[in-house]
């Protein structure tokens, strides 16, 4: 018997239900498509004139057949053919299983989300994306390793959050683009149409009541379907590998790869919270108060979305699903092997600097010694770089390309704003330096626990 079976009878039954639900969703979509979408234009060869709904009907029928196949395949799960082929899983992992590709993909996805917003807010495109994501999930569930990590009870909410977040972001861009067009055309905003005053009883209190009933039902159903995790009793001698913080802190834990605990665990969380609180006081833009829009607040919204989606949510996904024993990176279809070895041979900026052939011939390599003066001289390149980054860059920016910002914000506010932006940027910068030149610390003074 395979100790890690990709398919079991219960998995097949579960997937049968999964595809049945997808089928029902697409049947409903077919009805909608039949009413709204009309026909493929006559000019398109071969398929011109066919109702668009016909394609959705065919897709629903296909899903129905897949569902029946899963239900009937439960007798011999070992040989059931509808599964991800190993060749695909291996090549997928080989390409994506490292943090560089993961981060690059999340940034590319983020940029595409903003630039292509007019395309993906369309109903049909969004529905295709949803179906794509669901099919990817469903097919991946036929892999043992994927199921171990995604099916963990504590991780289920994260998967749910990703879908809800995608949906709400879709709603945002849809409403924002609509309002952008209205503003450009000089029409009233969407929020200003049909905006009569209504009585809170019944219009609001009934919404709240229905919401509470549905949520209670959801929580009870969730509680019955998934048991809260309970592992072995606590033991101070058996350290689990990996040891992970609660899932909502895994973005911070992931930052520990690039920064020491005093930065990743203390200073940066404080700056994140302080920065969040500072938002209303540094955003001088009066537009977009109380309605969805993008164009009039493009900078503010893009910055916030970048901080929330690639730098917070994607980092949580990375820390939760893709970090295994020894905090090594594992592909989604890869076995969490405790013995996986990743070479880490990182170099400090000071070593790069003093061991540079020219300096080496003049000064004889990196200064050695534990007294304060030697340490400061040794780390002077990094210290100068940090001072330049946090103290010189803001005024330079404020007097050149961001002059408009500084003029409107005043000096103090602009300094706070630019320092917050620089703190936000330092994480991707350090990541890039780590990946390109294996940089360990910009300033490395382990004698004082002061490493940046």
């Amino acid at each position, binding site marked *: 018997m395979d100790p890690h079976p990709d398919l079991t009878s219960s998995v097949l039954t579960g997937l049968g239900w999964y595809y049945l639900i997808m089928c029902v969703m697409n049947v409903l979509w077919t009805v909608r498509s039949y009413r709204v979408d009309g026909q493929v234009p006559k000019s398109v060869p071969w398929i011109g004139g066919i109702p668009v709904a016909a394609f959705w009907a065919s897709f629903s029928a296909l899903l129905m057949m897949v569902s029946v196949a899963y239900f009937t395949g439960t007798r011999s799960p070992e040989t059931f053919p509808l599964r991800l082929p190993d060749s695909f899983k291996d090549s997928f992992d080989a390409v994506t299983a490292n943090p560089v590709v993961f981060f690059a993909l999340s940034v590319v996805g983020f940029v595409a989300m903003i630039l292509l917003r007019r395309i993906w807010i369309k109903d049909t495109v969004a529905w295709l994306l949803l179906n794509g994501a669901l099919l990817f999930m469903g097919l991946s569930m036929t892999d043992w390793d994927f199921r171990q990590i995604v099916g963990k009870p*504590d991780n289920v*909410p994260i998967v*749910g959050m990703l879908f809800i*977040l995608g949906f*709400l972001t879709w709603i945002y861009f849809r409403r*924002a683009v609509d309002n952008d067009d209205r503003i450009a055309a000089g029409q009233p905003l*969407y*929020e*200003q149409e049909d*905006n*009569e005053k*209504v*009585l*809170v009883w019944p*219009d609001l*209190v009934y*919404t709240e009541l229905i*919401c509470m009933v549905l*949520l*209670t039902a959801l*929580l009870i159903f*969730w*509680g019955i379907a*998934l048991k*809260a*995790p*309970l*592992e*072995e009793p*606590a*033991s*101070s001698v058996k350290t*689990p590998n990996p*040891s*992970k*913080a*609660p899932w*909502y*802190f895994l973005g911070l834990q992931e930052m520990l790869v690039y920064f020491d*605990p*005093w930065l990743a*665990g*203390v*200073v940066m969380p404080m700056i994140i*919270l302080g920065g*969040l*609180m500072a938002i*209303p006081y540094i*955003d001088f833009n*009066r537009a977009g*108060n*109380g*309605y*969805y*829009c993008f164009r009039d607040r493009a900078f503010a*919204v893009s910055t*916030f979305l970048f901080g929330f989606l690639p730098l917070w949510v994607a980092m949580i996904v990375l820390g939760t699903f893709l970090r295994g024993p020894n905090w090594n990176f594992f592909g989604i279809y890869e076995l969490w092997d405790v013995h996986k070895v990743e070479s880490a041979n990182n170099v400090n900026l000071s070593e790069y600097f003093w061991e540079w052939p020219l300096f080496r011939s003049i000064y004889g390599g990196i200064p050695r010694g534990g007294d304060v003066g030697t340490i400061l001289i040794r780390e002077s390149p990094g210290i100068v770089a940090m001072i330049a980054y946090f103290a010189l860059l803001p005024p330079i920016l404020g007097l050149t390309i961001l002059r408009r910002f500084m003029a409107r914000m005043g000096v103090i506010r602009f300094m706070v704003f630019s320092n917050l932006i620089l703190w936000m940027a330092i994480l991707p910068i350090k990541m890039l330096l780590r990946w390109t030149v294996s940089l360990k610390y910009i300033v490395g*003074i382990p004698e004082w*626990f*002061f490493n940046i």
Partner: protein
Amino acid sequence: MSPGEYIRNSQIWRSIFRHPAPTDRRNRVVVMLTNFFLHLHPVSIKQQGIALSYTWCMGGITFFLFLVETITGVLLMFYYRPTLEWAFADIQALRDVQTLGIMREIHRWGAHAMVITVWLHMYRVFLTGSYKPPREFNWVIGVLLLVLTLLLSFTGYLLPWDQLAVWAITVGSNMARAHPFLGSEGPGYQLLNLGGYDLITPGSDAKFILLGGRFVGEATLNRFYILHCVAIPLVVAGLIAIHFWRVRKDGGISQPL
């Protein structure tokens, strides 16, 4: 006179509900003003301000989840004993044998959901620009509530006293050791000394204060239990009250000016 009418005309009923059922316009207004639970709301509101596609209902859901957590949490407190001897066994019994043990499941999933809905509420408030004047300070209170929600979840994470709990808290609280100046492995702690003696040692630093010891142990369990069940919920309740009050005082739910 039907029994229903008799009850509604009785002195007891009329002392509780001081006006007829909210079936006509006048009584629908009056009910919002005279009912304690409803008076958080205004009497009337702009239609688009309460549209689900606008609010996503996330703030309300967060508050509802806070109530669910309070109720299930109180029920769990009747059963659970925060000691090394009993903590794990009590949770195990809740899972395996205890009637209404599902309260623990609801409590845990509700906690996860609450973290998510706080984020999504902030997401919506940002994207509609609702933190802009005059609502700046309510956004600040909201960020404080975010911190407290995360701390509530973090302190509750330890209470089952299993491997998952203890090591997650160990990983999280190790950060306190690296606190600048106040952690025994943080930069600058050497600066705090008197006559050559360090004030900040593993026996006196930020991690020690958080855990009530050098390691996650019985003192930590007690400390986190009090924080989780009493201290933080009290502060959260106070801040929620201010948050709601300010929503009303800052001009109600945000709308285009």
